[in-house]
């Protein structure tokens, strides 16, 4: 069992957790993830570690309550337990030392780029972060980014906070006017957002690394469910990634494969919502 030590909401549907998981923490490097299973009968889901501390044996996760499992996870609080946490998984982020690195996070994808900032700063980069959401309420980690980045820009689609527009538009503006040449862009977030970022950097030939989030089961390369096409070649996000050269990724295919279980995800949400209204959440646990 893995104990939640601390938890708090960052936005109405985004929650931060500090969890005791000494084995996942001990060798964790930025860019790596864990596979988590909430309870008996739960599914295995991959989540990027926002931070980890080897000495205290803790990891930090930032989770958007979007499907049945992430909603159940976000219902948990300090002193609750999680059945299984396996990790660290995936290759660590390739830290590309250059004069100016730009981090682009869309929504909860900001939790994926946030841990890269200290490593890039250590490598001597000037680090700029762009974080965005549809509206002010959905922008997360702005304050935290400010402590680890040189510049932070916030974007909202409705203009309720910061730049009005999306993160790719802001990136365009930045690339056009930057006094330091941008050597690398790291992007994480919804597929359309990562695709938009790559479209902007491709013409300018700026190395762009994206962190991908396909559906996974085991996370060790055994099932092949997370296969994606990069540069015309089949790769597995869990062992070959999760970060890839964004200019080579087949985003259409990734977006399509992410919809494979849409019907079942809706059914699982119905079960979750039914449990919420009837307060019989523990029934699931009787099946083992």
């Amino acid at each position: 069992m893995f104990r939640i030590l601390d938890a708090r909401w960052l936005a109405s549907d985004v929650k931060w957790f500090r969890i005791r998981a000494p084995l996942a923490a001990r060798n964790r490097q930025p860019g790596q993830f864990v596979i988590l299973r909430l309870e008996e009968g739960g599914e295995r889901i991959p989540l990027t570690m926002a931070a980890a501390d080897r000495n205290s044996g803790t990891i930090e996760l930032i989770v958007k309550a979007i499907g049945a499992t992430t909603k159940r996870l976000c219902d948990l609080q300090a002193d609750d337990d999680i059945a299984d946490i396996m990790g660290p998984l995936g290759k660590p982020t390739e830290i590309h030392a250059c004069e100016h690195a730009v981090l682009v996070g869309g929504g909860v994808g900001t939790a994926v780029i946030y841990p890269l900032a200290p490593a890039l700063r250590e490598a001597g980069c000037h680090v700029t972060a762009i974080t965005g959401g549809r509206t002010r309420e959905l922008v997360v980690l702005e304050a935290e980014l400010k402590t680890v980045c040189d510049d932070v820009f916030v974007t909202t689609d409705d203009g309720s906070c910061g730049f009005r527009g999306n993160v790719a538009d802001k990136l365009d503006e930045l690339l056009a006017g930057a006094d330091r040449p941008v050597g690398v862009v790291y992007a994480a977030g919804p597929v359309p957002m990562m695709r938009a970022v790559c479209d902007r950097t491709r013409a300018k030939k700026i190395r762009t690394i994206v962190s991908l989030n396909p559906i996974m089961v085991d996370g060790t390369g055994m099932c092949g469910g997370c296969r994606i096409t990069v540069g015309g070649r089949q790769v597995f996000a869990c062992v070959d990634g999760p970060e890839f050269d964004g200019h080579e990724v087949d985003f259409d295919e990734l977006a399509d494969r992410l919809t494979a279980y849409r019907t079942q995800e809706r059914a699982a949400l119905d079960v979750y919502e039914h449990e919420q209204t009837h307060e019989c959440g523990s029934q699931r646990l009787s099946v083992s």
Partner: protein
Amino acid sequence: MAMSPKDRIKIQRQSMPERDAGLRSGDFREVNIGFSIDLAQTESVRCLQCKDAKCSCGCPVGIPIPEFLERIAENDLPGAAEILLGANALPGITGRVCPQEEQCEQFCVRAKSKNGAPVAIGHLERFVADWARENMDIRQICAPPTGKKVAVVGSGPAGLTCAGELAKCGHDVTIFEALHTVGGVLTYGIPEFRLPNKIIEAEVDRLRQMGVKIICNVVVGRTFTVDELLTEEGFDAMFIANGAGLPVFMNIPGENYKGVYSANEYLTRTNLMRAYEFPVVDTPIIQGDRIAVIGGGNVAMDAVRTAKRLGAKVATLVYRRSRDEMPARREEVHHAEQEGIEFRMLTAPLRIIGDEKRWVRGLECQRMELGEPDDSGRRRPMAIPGSEFVIDCDVVIEAIGTRANPLLTATTPDLTLNKWGYIEVDDNGATSKPGVYAGGDITRGSATVILAMGDGKRAAMSIHDYLAAPAEAPAGV
């Protein structure tokens, strides 16, 4: 029960009682019911007690087969169990999943005569193992603690066997398992209708009673490197049995459409994650009406029979050679036929057809004929021009093999690998790294449960010798 060879030879092979094919293909309970004591005794008397027992030579772990069969015939089941368990730590598992027709039973003298059939050694092994589990206290007596710590990577058949043998010798054994459940391929791969989980749980409980520690959710190569286990964590030796790993895809068009699975994923979702109980459990699976499985081995057979149990109206097996070349166990082919699996032999897939939303709608294939024998000694399948046709289906499962998992080896640079990325070992199971041994699929590629167990047993003996030897320069110096 003294009976002359002449009388023995008159007895016909007893067949295994099975659950009705129509009933069983709708659930995941075990197909074989098991021998009764009467059937077991009748069958065991068929053994002619050859002095030069070829059957035992065909067994990768060298079970003294005539001896345990004779005890059954004498109604001495505890005696039979003692002999069997002395040679094979997991007989309840091997009795169910070994390809006996290629091993012990292939060499049975009873199979040599006209219309002869070998003694049903596998079924008798299963019988004795099940009887022992239910009727005996099979707690193993272990040697006094040696104070030596051994790490076992992976809790599949090789790891479990090695751990048991090392614990017997008094070593302090810890198994590291990557998944949340113990058993490796026995749990995520082989379906319950062939190998019920309770059999695996019983074997694992026995290891725990012997003092073996099991830690799940540890990916050696990431959570700990091999060197960290040997230095920081203080292990004196290690056995690597982390399995084969990555599924191979055919590299035909349409493989990334929705509804295409590797057999590993399809079986893991079903066996490990119990997706057939969705939405009571959280892991979903795409339940097709018409499912095509590509391949001819045991994994293909498990996948196609699982598809039937998940409710497929038509479950088809597509194999490019003929039935004679299929590597699957004969009993599985027989059971699959009874359960209404459609066999499309001499058929090679060309591409997967999808609709405008990229859902699988069919598998385009080509008919084949057999030519001259190839390198494997099997007749080479050759395409018949103009024979293309489409199998209508909404799920395609590829079961064509696996390749080496790089997670552990990539972070252990001083392990010598062969050209396919599998770990090289010598006849004792030793790797190029002192104190580190390996076995099972990570050394062989896709093989069988019993070969993995044989590796585990052999490596345990080598590790025991290594730990007993006077201290040499420690690893890494």
